[in-house]
């Protein structure tokens, strides 16, 4: 999984910060390594040193720098120009110069530019229009227009609409019910109807519900128990399902989900930016 190491850094460091353990990391070392993943020509970041630049890893870079309060390490204009340059005519975003379009990339671009206070570099109205065109009859969202509703895409769409003040495009009762029905008998959440539960949906479904104020429609205690049951109590970490192998991806989403449910001892995470609330408040409310 070396091609997504930068995202791994985001998952790991955010999980640490949520658990009040970010102090165990040396910020300078991290910043140096992150900057070494940047493609000097385009300004975008690759998943690892030498890998091609892509929106996904550019966001991860900005998110990690935000947590470490080291956004000063960036040439903000260059990075934001890279991101803004990937917006297409119809408002959608390509992940990179090769042109793959997906609502994930709309979220990544909007989230990234917002953290850098450069949202005005894109056509926000058209970006919103594209996301709305991916809205399905069940109230959910897919990757591209016509794509089946999937919790990951729903988070990306709802998150992007939240950041751009456009949540009114969502039928919150309709989507809220679709999302709350992701909770299965084992207490966990699945990603779409008739699929297996998975800890990562504890983030995507849960945070989508929180953003539209429908989280009270699921049983949070049951979900907490499910997540905690996915821990490897010998070696640490959280897996996708009980008794499966752990990884940093599921560990982060499990901790993030628990944070959203106000699990004691964890910092609060912002549901739209997927960063600790104190980081977001610092970025948006400081003089």
């Amino acid at each position: 999984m070396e091609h997504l190491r930068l995202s791994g850094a985001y998952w790991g460091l955010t999980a640490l910060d949520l658990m009040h353990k970010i102090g165990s990391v040396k910020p300078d070392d991290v910043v140096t390594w992150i900057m070494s993943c940047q493609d000097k020509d385009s300004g975008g970041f690759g998943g690892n040193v030498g890998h091609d630049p892509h929106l996904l890893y550019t966001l991860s870079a900005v998110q990690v720098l935000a947590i470490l309060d080291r956004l000063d390490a960036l040439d903000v204009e260059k990075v934001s120009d890279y991101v803004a340059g990937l917006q297409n005519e119809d408002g959608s975003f390509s992940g990179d110069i090769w042109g793959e379009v997906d609502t994930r990339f709309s979220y990544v671009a909007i989230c990234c530019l917002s953290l850098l206070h450069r949202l005005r570099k894109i056509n926000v109205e058209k970006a919103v229009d594209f996301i709305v065109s991916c809205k399905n009859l069940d109230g959910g969202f897919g990757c591209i227009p016509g794509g089946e509703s999937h919790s990951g895409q729903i988070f990306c769409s709802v998150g992007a609409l939240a950041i751009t003040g456009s949540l009114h495009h969502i039928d919150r009762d309709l989507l809220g019910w679709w999302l709350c029905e992701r909770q299965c008998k084992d207490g966990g959440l699945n990603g779409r109807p008739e699929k297996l539960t998975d800890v990562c949906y504890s983030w995507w479904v849960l945070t989508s519900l929180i953003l539209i104020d429908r989280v009270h429609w699921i049983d949070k205690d049951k979900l907490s128990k499910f997540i905690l049951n996915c821990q490897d109590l010998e070696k640490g970490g959280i897996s996708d399902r009980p008794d499966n192998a752990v990884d940093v991806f599921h560990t982060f989403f499990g901790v993030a989900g628990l944070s959203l449910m106000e699990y004691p001892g964890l910092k609060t995470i912002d549901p739209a930016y997927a960063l600790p609330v104190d980081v977001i408040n610092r970025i948006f409310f400081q003089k």
Partner: protein
Amino acid sequence: MHGRPRKATKQEDPAAAAAKSARLRELQSQLLHFHHNRIYTKEAVSVSSKLLEINPEIYTGWNYRKLAFQHNLKEVSDTDTIKSAIEDELRMVEVALRRNPKSYGAWYHRKWVLGQKLVPANFDNEFRLLDMLLKADARNFHGWSYRRYIARLKDVSEEEELKFTMDMINTNFSNYSAWHNRSMLLSNLLRNKVKGFLERENILSDEFELVRQALFTDPSDQSGWFYHLWLLDQTSTPHKPHLVSSWPSDGCNINISSIFREKCERFPIVFCFNQQVDGVNLATVTVNSKAISSEHITWKPLSANNSRKSKVWGAFVEIFNEDFDNSQDLSVEISVNLCGSIVHLKFVVKLSCMDHQEKDGGGSEEPFLWDCLEKCQKLGEIPPNFVSYDWLGVRDESVGEDAKWHLDTLSAEIALFKEMLECEEDSKFVKLTLARLLSAHNSIKPGGDSYFEETLKLFDDLIKLDVPHNRYYRDERSLVLLDQLTSSKDSLVKYCSKCENPSFSYFNPQLCIHFSGLNLTRIGFVERLLWVQILDLSHNNLTSILGLEALQLLVGLNLSHNQITSFTSLEPIKYSKSLKVLDLSFNEIGSHPVDTTRYLCTSPLSHTYDATETINELARENIQIGDFWEAVLLFKSLQLVQLDMQGNPVANERFRVLVEKVNPCLRWLDGKSLK
């Protein structure tokens, strides 16, 4: 990352595992070398093949292949060479998809290659691959998405694709992906009025029959139920938007009390439509009256969000004092010309001089006491300002005809589901769908007490039957209950009273509603409550007050003893510009770090409010807005005279100081006088 057991089923030799990783790293490093040095020889490309075969997620590998493809075909015009190059790429994708059928990189590479359109695509090959993959996993959304792409490329008709969904559904009812595709295709065919799809009602009836088979076969499978919900929505939603209620309403008299120092210079007009509309403006709404200048009327959507569309619209109308004196009645005529129909309203405004000392109840030595409402005069008869829900919409014949098919279909479905309930007593989906069918029927043709009793009971059953989702059913139940309470003058009058002292409102008498202690978790049917000036919602289970933004006459609101957890959830009251008295005591503000309405209010986080000025202003007074931005942004848009906050964890001394600073008009805080 997904689906790997914690304890490996067979002990993998650590040496072999290490060798595997080393090989992968070696291949990757070679690939990056070729990529950075733009080496596109056959040998170099074959390294990328080996790499992507092992791990199709290495996206730089796919990028490299695209560059190699472009480079090696530059200035090549020989069709065979081109075809061969394309086939190599398609084969690579197929190999990768066998490894991981959900690889975004692999699927996109195939799309990209075909999208180059260098030669006509081999559609047989594409459909062969799709059939194979969808057979292995009928829910692979990458496959479905790619199928839609190929179908468009080949110009396959939507009708033919509809048949494919039918095949998939017939193979296995539990195929949400197929139902999803079907609903989308049908929607398009119906909307575009394609030949063979003109009889909308027949089509929908057929679909009801189809989904019924799925539901009866396996009621526990979700797929069919979501499709049924979509069909229900097609059957119950009216086509045309129309006006549902207004304040002032047609034929009523409004008494405006002019306090001796100043006359009431303006009053609100509110319209409620049955669905979200836009285009309410000076061109579509005309206001005719002697002492009103209609050019200055600004219609605004009254919706607690950023939208240009809203179900509720309002404007303030100014009365020119010079032209008008206390002895005259002001007659006002309004016509609303929207969505193909015109509605006329006529009402009369009477100005009277009241014997109050000062406005805003400022002359009174006592704060407004909520418990004094019990002593209020219960309404024995309906006073002139009291208007409940009346249909105002213009009904033309076509709406009437439509209604017949809708009602018949809904009645038939209701009968079937009641039958089904006898065999499937414990199926939450059957109960919930039945409740939804009954509600849909009721909204076209009110069912009265029997509807309310039956539906409330269904939700009571569901609350016990499906405990994890009980709060969803409580929300739905609250709406049915509010429907019942506001459904007629007789039912509503039990909850009303008249409250005159102290008076905060220009409109006399001051009418109050007490919806207290009813286990309400959410608010609805506000179109029937536009005339309310004082609203007591205390002792309920409210976490949201969405809907209250329509109440333009509201001067007093009691939300004490509820479950309000944040200031952001109070966004709707920012729209009630006349609000003076607010009781928030004994809620849960400050006890929850997670704010579920953080992005549903105007704030810098959603780019709907520039807080720079406010931040600077407060910084000058040594107040860090960070901790209390939600409270600051709320109170700054209100002009409260009286506020109760005790019983909320947030209400400490530091907070009280802040509250006084940002509420300059405040006279009473937690029952104590501030001046």
